[in-house]
C-alpha cells in the first residue's frame, strides 16, 4: 500500500493488508493527532487497508507540523521525501 503523509510531505510504501491503527503504530504517529483518509473518506482505526490501497495521513494539529518517528521503520519498505 502507499501511505501519503502530509506536513511534511512524504510517501511511504508499506506491506498490506494492515489495520489503520497498525499503520500509525508502525509510523510512530499518535492517533490523536491525525486523520487517516482513503478515497476522500475517513477510515476508522479498525479498518483494514489492502495492499492495493492508497491512504492519506493528515495531521490535525494547527500551528505546525508533526514528525514521523523513524525509530520503528521495520515495516516501512521505502520512504521518499517531497518538497512541501
Amino acid at each position, binding site marked *: 500500500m502507499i501511505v501519503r503523509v502530509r506536513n511534511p510531505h512524504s510517501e511511504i510504501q508499506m506491506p498490506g493488508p494492515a489495520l489503520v491503527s497498525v499503520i500509525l503504530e508502525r509510523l510512530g504517529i499518535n492517533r490523536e493527532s491525525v486523520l487517516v*483518509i482513503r478515497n476522500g473518506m*475517513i477510515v*476508522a482505526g479498525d479498518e483494514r487497508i489492502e495492499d492495493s490501497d492508497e491512504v492519506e495521513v493528515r495531521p490535525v494539529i*494547527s500551528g*505546525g507540523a508533526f514528525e514521523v518517528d523513524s525509530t520503528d521503520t521495520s515495516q516501512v519498505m521505502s520512504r521518499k521525501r517531497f518538497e512541501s
Partner: protein
Amino acid sequence: MKCVVCREPAVIDVRRANSNFCQDHFVRFCLEQMSRAVREFDMFSPEAKILVAVSGGKDSLAVWDMLQRSGYQADGLYLGLGITDYSDTSAHFARTFATARDLKLIEVDLPTEYGYDIPTGARTAGRVPCSACGTSKRHLFDKAALDGSYDVLVTGHNLDDEAAVLFGNVLRWQTEYLARQMPVLSAWLGFPEKVKPLIRLSERDTAADCVISGIDYIIDECPMSSGNKHLRYKKALNSIELVSPGTKFDFYSGFLRKDSHLFRTAYFEHTENHATAERSRHAIPAEVSHAQPVRIATRAERSTSSLHAELEAGQ
C-alpha cells in the same frame, strides 16, 4: 466498530466520550457540542449579528459552517497577513467557502491597507512572528467587529487550543492570562465581545467534520509557526490523551468549572485599570463610562457582581 447511535459502521471514534460515530451522527455530534457550548456560556442569542474570524483553516471554516447550519446570521472576516504563498492559499479557501454558501466575507489586507506584512512587522518589532501576528490580528478583528456593529466576534479556538494555552499558563502560573482564558470575553471599552463556540471539540473533531462535510481547508501549516511552543504543549497533551482519553477535556473543563474564578480578581483589576486609563485618556468622567451601551457592560458587570458576592460571602 459501530456507530453508538445507529449501529451502522463507524468512521471515527471519540474516545473521550467513549463513542464511535458514522458520518451523519458524527456531524450531528459536532453540531450538538457547539450548540451546547453556546448555551452553557450564554455566548449569543439566535438574533445576534455574528462576525467569524476566518483563516481558511479547518476550525474557522467548521465553526462558520456550523453557525450557518444552525440558522445564525454570521459574516466572515479574513485578514491577509502577507505571509508569502500561504496567505494566498488560505484566502482562496476562505473565499471558496463563502462563495459556495453565498456568505459575506469581509477582507482586510495588511500589506495593502496598513503597509506591512507579518514577516516584516515581526522583524521590525523584534518579536517572534506568532506574537506579532496575534497582536495584529486581535487589533484588526476588534476594529472590524466594532466598525461593522457586530454583537459578537467568534473565533475557531478548539479544545486542543484552549488546553494547550491553559497548560502553558499553568506551567508559568500566569494568573492574569489564566483569568482571561474564558470561552466568553465580555465587551469592554474598545473591545468587542469574543466567544469560542468550539471549546467542546478537539482539532481531530473539527478536521473530521470538515472532511465529512466536504469543506476544503488549508492543510499546510503556516511556515512561520514552526517551533511554536503551543505545538509542543499540544504534542505533550496528546501523548497523555493517547493513554488516558478525556484528559484534555477534563483539564480544561475542570479549570472552567472549579478554578477559573480564583483568577478573576487579577483580570478585573487589569480591565478596571485599562478602563480607568481609557477614561483618563479621553477625559471621560467615571459616571459617563458607566453609561456605555448596555451590551458592553452587562456580562462583565454581572460577573463582577457575582465575584463580589462570592468574596463578601468568604467563598
